[in-house]
């Protein structure tokens, strides 16, 4: 029998039993579709986290003092005062691989513009801070190094703050007060949106650190942290180590525990771990549905071959050889799993996109998830199509013909 004839026979028999064909394919469609959707969502989550981390700055290293061990109540980290302003200059000139560096001095204070109030944390920084954190101005400009040196009473507002205080716009050039000190707004930052943990990245007030130290300090000792951006991601660990060694060298009474040197690679690694866990979880769910789908295929294939034992007997009685019967069933299985797999891929991609749109979440359909699910279902489909067919073809012809 010619291959083409067997192909036609296989196709015809699939077309003639539409419901059975559809049911068999359904297992594959759902299995493949589920894997594609789950993995696309997982991969999307990963990408989302990566993008989130990028908005927080490039290759940022944060150096802060550990909490002061001498006080009775242990305080939050960063509240110690092991870091001095001079350390900024030292790091800038003595550590290699530092691109930008800025001290960060925080102060709580109330902003007042006319009748409106906004209580927030203000950051005292230098002009390099904008580059470390990837800020951009939508209006006005950053403060200049001259303004920093002179301790000018200027500030740059995040969009949320600016919109609240000046709902009609035109914040730049306005004078508002912080802790009752009048300050001029010189710039408004471009919108950044939400951070990974849900904080508002636009709820920010930036002031020259000199101004904070001189006029807005409050009663506490200044706690200084240092933000550094490294030239490249790869050298972050080296730069971290060098900064720590330099700080220890400068102040021999302190130990490694006095400082906390963090980088975003740590954060990124952690986030990656989290999203990998999510992907693993989704993959195992998808894997389970693939196995369930496989069992469905196996079931229907077994049933359909059993109910077709008579047909096999008849075909053999009129001259079909064992291999003709086997080939027909394998072709049917290939058609079923191939077509089912393709429909599953399309359906899975569509569902992934719809879910992505609904959750405002970018989904990524990877080639390997397509290949994995497709080949898995193909193998299952072909095996469970071939195995019962072989059994039937090996049956005694008389038994097959008389099978009830």
């Amino acid at each position, binding site marked *: 029998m010619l291959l083409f*004839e067997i192909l036609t026979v296989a196709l015809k028999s699939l077309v003639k039993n539409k419901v059975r064909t559809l049911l068999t394919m359904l297992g594959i469609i759902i299995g493949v579709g589920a894997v594609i959707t789950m993995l696309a969502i997982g991969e999307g989550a990963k990408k989302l986290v990566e993008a989130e981390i990028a908005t927080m700055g490039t290759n940022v290293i944060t150096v802060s003092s550990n909490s002061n061990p001498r006080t009775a109540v242990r305080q939050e980290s960063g509240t110690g005062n092991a870091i001095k302003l001079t350390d900024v200059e030292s790091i800038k000139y003595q550590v290699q691989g530092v691109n930008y560096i800025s001290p960060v001095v925080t102060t709580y204070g109330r902003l007042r513009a006319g009748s409106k109030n906004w209580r927030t944390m203000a950051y005292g920084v230098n002009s390099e801070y904008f580059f470390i954190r990837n800020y951009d101005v939508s209006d006005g400009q950053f403060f200049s190094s001259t303004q920093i040196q002179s301790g000018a009473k200027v500030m740059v507002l995040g969009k949320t703050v600016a919109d609240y205080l000046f709902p009609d716009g035109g914040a730049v050039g306005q004078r508002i007060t912080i802790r009752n000190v009048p300050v001029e707004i010189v710039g408004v930052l471009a919108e950044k949106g939400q951070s990974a943990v849900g904080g508002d990245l636009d709820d920010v007030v930036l002031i020259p650190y000199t101004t904070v130290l001189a006029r807005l300090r409050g009663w506490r000792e200044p706690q200084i942290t240092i933000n550094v951006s490294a030239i490249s991601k790869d050298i972050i660990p080296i730069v971290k180590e060098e900064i720590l060694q330099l700080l220890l060298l400068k102040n021999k009474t302190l130990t490694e525990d006095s400082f906390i040197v963090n980088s975003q690679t740590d954060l990124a690694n952690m986030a990656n771990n989290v999203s990998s866990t999510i992907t693993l979880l989704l993959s195992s769910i998808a894997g389970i549905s693939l196995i369930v789908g496989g069992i469905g295929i196996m079931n229907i294939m077994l049933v359909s071959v059993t109910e077709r034992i008579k047909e096999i007997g008849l075909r053999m*009685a*009129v001259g079909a050889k*064992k291999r003709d019967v086997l080939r027909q069933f394998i072709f049917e299985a290939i058609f079923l799993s191939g077509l089912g797999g393709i429909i599953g891929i399309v359906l899975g991609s569509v569902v992934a996109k719809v879910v992505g749109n609904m959750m405002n979440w970018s989904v990524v359909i990877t080639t390997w998830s397509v290949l994995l699910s497709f080949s898995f279902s193909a193998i299952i489909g072909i095996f469970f199509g071939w195995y019962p067919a072989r059994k039937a073809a090996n049956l005694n012809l*008389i038994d097959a013909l008389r099978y009830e």
Partner: protein
Amino acid sequence: MLINLIEVKDLTKTYKMGDIEVHALQSINLSIQKGEFVSIMGMSGSGKTTLMNILGCLDKPTSGSYRLDNVMIEDIPKDDLADIRNQKIGFVFQSFYLLSRTSALENVELPLLYRKSLKRKERISMAEDALKTVQMSERLHHYPNQLSGGQQQRVAIARAIVNNPVILFADEPTGNLDSRTSLEIINVFQELHKKGITIIIVTHEPEIAQFTERIVTFSDGKIINDVKNHKIESAMEVLKQLSHAKKEEN
């Protein structure tokens, strides 16, 4: 001298059912000549179907020799038996065995699919010819569930003769049909016989056997009687009488 189409010598068939051996056939000797119309009679379990399965190359004997059309069947491997069934033998079964959701034409075409080097057009015209022989030209594209029992059996007969076999086996071909339709089917066989086809019918009904030339009777795996039928009835005649009687009743 007539040619022996079938020659069976000392043929036995033994089934093992657990520890018990069932001797379905015990040293059968039988020869059938080309062009004969034979019926094999017997109670169920007498071995007549077992013999037909072996003669039809569906099954192999336990011992003994079987020559069909000058080919020694017992030496032939399984796959080549498929070719012999395909080219030399036609089968008609009690329950038709037509493929469902498949048109009459496609059902008849089925054996041709397993024969090499036939073009689609040739296959279709051969299938159409076979259906014409059994007077089913009007229903080429009907599905089995759209046909009556008699019509389905006609399609099955067309499928059996589409390959121009040297011999046609029919296993209780009228078992599922009413008496009038049975006569019509027997008539089809008689017409085919007139065209020279060798036919063997397996049946347990003596009335059916009366339409054949030779009656071989089986009991307990042995041939107990093998006689020529001297007053062969014509199915056509009986049918005519039947419709005549019906007219007179009216």
